């Protein structure tokens, strides 16, 4: 609405004034990065009526929102459709993993000569200004996504902490936060005492580089013994909760993500690998979707129960989807290839409305019929819900005089699922 229209409208509606306040911005984001490209047909855009060479006779099941059906591979998520909205018409033109990932992470076409920051680094940058926790503002569980999905020209400081380790192991060992396995508390105290005694350079503290070294050491020691390490101690959760998320790497990573949200970390990525199902697609999907379905459903339920869902955005997407037609010929033997023309994503929480479907794909989930969603529309919506204006310029120190994201597409950001403004009625 432009300013002029707004003035006229507000003049016309001189009703008993209920002031409207925008819903508060989200505090944290959990990104489930489905690296490799998940099939839209076996997840959120099933086509039970398509020929078998497309759906391999997989069915759709109803959800707890009437009119919305998802793949039978996701029975748990079907019980929570009121909590999320499905985007069935994500679309772009890059069918290579790295170019597509760069686009889905930064909203930018590759090849501009600059490495733009990924959305995680952007949120970490802006939200990080108020964030005072011991952990970095951008944490990736558990493996790095590669430089095309990181801090770009924002620089070093916004590089994510990549945990490494296995959250499903008896002790989730996080490189740089928790001490390596096999050491007792006594060993650890002893080695720090020894470091004090043996490091001769401590007495040259007036040399500038060494005084920084000393300060960095003190800060590191404080962080190591502060709250940071406890966040990764999953033994503090009950068995019931741990089992609900699923006793596998992905499930426990989702549980860790919830703990990170509780610790105030603004941006968390779960790098869910292994979705590049060129061969034996259906075997892969059965295993992967079972873990994903259980963990994601548990995460949404858990966040809702803890009253965290309204302030936490959860989004799920790969860099692209997969070819609708199944390749039965050798060497694929039942595989699906990379496919960016039309694929699905999921968004929940942080004020976004649940129980909605955005966009319509054709009868085989192969082309967009209506309401295409460009990568910058999805990313822009997330930024906007975090209280960050996607059209504002990059911070001055970067020297990049461009908006955070390219201009939204004609159909635009996902305003149809933005929260209604909160009415604070009656005060005049």
């Amino acid at each position: 609405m432009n300013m002029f229209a707004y003035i006229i409208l507000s003049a016309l509606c001189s009703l008993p004034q209920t002031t409207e306040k925008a819903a508060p911005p989200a505090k944290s984001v959990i990104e489930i990065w489905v690296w490799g490209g998940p099939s839209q047909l076996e997840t959120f855009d099933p086509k039970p009526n398509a020929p078998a060479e497309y759906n391999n006779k997989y069915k759709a099941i109803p959800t707890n929102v009437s009119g919305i059906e998802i793949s039978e591979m996701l029975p748990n998520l079907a019980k929570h459709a009121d909590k999320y909205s499905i985007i069935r018409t994500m679309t772009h033109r890059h069918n290579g993993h790295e170019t597509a990932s760069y686009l889905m992470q930064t909203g930018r076409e590759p090849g501009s000569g600059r490495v733009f920051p990924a959305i995680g680094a952007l949120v970490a940058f802006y939200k990080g200004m108020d964030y005072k926790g011991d952990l970095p503002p951008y944490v990736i569980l558990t493996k790095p996504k590669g430089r095309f999905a990181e801090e770009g020209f924002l620089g070093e400081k916004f590089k994510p902490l990549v945990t490494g380790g296995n959250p499903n192991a008896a002790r989730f060992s996080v490189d740089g936060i928790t001490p390596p396995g096999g050491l007792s508390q006594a060993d650890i105290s002893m080695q720090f005492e020894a470091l004090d005694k043996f490091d001769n350079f401590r007495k040259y503290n007036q040399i500038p580089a060494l005084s920084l070294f000393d300060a960095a050491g003190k800060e590191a020691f404080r962080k190591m013994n502060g709250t940071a390490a406890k966040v990764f101690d999953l033994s503090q959760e009950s068995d019931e909760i741990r089992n609900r998320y699923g006793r596998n790497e992905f499930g426990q990573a989702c549980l860790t993500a919830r703990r990170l949200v509780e610790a105030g970390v603004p941006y968390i990525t779960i790098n869910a690998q292994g979705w590049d199902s060129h061969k034996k697609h259906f075997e892969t999907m059965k295993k992967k979707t079972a873990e994903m379905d259980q963990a994601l459903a548990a995460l949404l339920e858990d966040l809702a129960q803890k009253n965290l869902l309204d302030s936490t955005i959860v989004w799920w997407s790969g860099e692209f989807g997969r070819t609708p037609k199944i390749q039965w010929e050798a060497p694929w033997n039942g595989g699906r290839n990379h496919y960016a023309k039309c694929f699905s994503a999921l968004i929940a929480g942080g004020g976004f409305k649940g129980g909605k479907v955005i966009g319509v794909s054709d009868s085989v989930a192969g082309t967009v019929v209506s309401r295409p969603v460009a990568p910058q529309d999805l990313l822009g919506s997330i930024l906007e819900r975090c209280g960050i204006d996607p059209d504002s310029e990059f911070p001055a120190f970067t020297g990049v005089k461009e908006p955070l994201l390219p201009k939204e597409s004609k159909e635009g950001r996902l305003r149809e699922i933005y929260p209604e403004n909160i009415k604070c009625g009656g005060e005049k």
Partner: protein
Amino acid sequence: MLSVKQIFICAVILTGIPLFSQNIYLKSKKTEIISQFDKLLAELWLDENISPANEASDCVMVRRLYIDLAGRVPTPAEALSYIGDKNKDKQSELVKKLLNTEEHAMFMTMRYGDELRIKSEFPINLWPNAAFLYTRTIFEALKNNMPYDKFAACMILSDGSNFRNGYANFFRAVPQKNAENAADAAAKFLLGKPLNELSYWQRKKFLNTFEGIRFKSTREWKEEIVYFTGNDTRQTLLNDIVKEKDFSLNAVKRTWRWIFGSDNVHPEITDFLADRFRSNKYDIRDLLYTICTSAAYRSGSICDGDYQKNAQMGAVYPMRRLDAEVLADSIAQITNMPVTYSSVIPEPFSYYKGRAAALPDGSITDKFLLIFGRPSRDSGAADERKSIITAEQRLYLFNSSALNNQLNNILRKKIKKEKDKLTALYLLFYSRKPTAAERKTFHEMGKKVKSWKLLNRMPWVLLNSGEFLFQH
């Protein structure tokens, strides 16, 4: 007959100097003034009323030379052979020896690669085999000690396929394929300044020269041909630039930065070296030899007075954290556990096992190199390399499981058969033996916590100490 040791003890008693008051990092005398360059330094110090650091001790010097010229700490054998050498010219001889190794050429290739943005894909879409060839081409030139003016000409005058002529990637490894980017790359390499910092006339000259640059693809995937249309005036530009003082000065400042960590240095120092560089036919190795045998280089890293100012005047060797690649390679050498680096950009993924300093492509990396500020090679600017030490880095060194696995290999395998394990560890990490005081500390603490337990954690202790993590 009295042994040497007894004589020493007698001397100590007679002169009243307490035992081990001597600093193990410094000699007891000021740095010796030997060459013409040293005399210039000494005069500067006198003028500015600076008291220079004492000369660095042997164990410091051998470590320093291997780190600066070979990109890793010396092995115990290399360290002991230098420390035990009675030859008074051993410092300059080791410099000469190291400058002639392939390892040195490889390490310098890494330094040039940072500046020339040698990396595949993001953000400049160079294909990995072009990055590999470019690296290899520079390595060959440095190995043969190609004069610097000729080296620059190879870049500036290059054309043809970027898969066949490595130098042609000089124009390919830029953000955008156009005259402005080519001119900018040339200005940065030749004069150390981006195009927009040149004078109006000079900028115009550069832009005009590269106006005719063109690129075309071939039937080979991602191969590109660099060629020039119209009147090619690159040779004229090059002839003019080589005559300029800034051409030599830029090479000198770059080299000074590689050795001392910063090019914030008194102009008389760099002017002297630039003159010498020019009159010695742009001999890169001679320049390094002059720097690394100078009084500035032989100075210790500990001094009284204003440290920053002393560093600027070449009166102290400035302490700084080891570079990411040097640190990684040194740890791999000390532990006998080489690391595998990888690139997921583009498919098919690349894997590379070996020296971090030898990685032919900036996209091939690992978590360690990322944390310790290896340059991203996006812009090629010197400040892409981060040499400060952060809390995150110290946390990683304290706690990394990967590092812990490497460290465990030392006692379990590498020095399993050594009798004196404490000495073996000190030689591996510090390139020196432990002092009597350090042995005493070890025994005293060992009594309290059991010495085998303490010994087990000593690799961690030495790794995390300033003496290991800093170039000094």
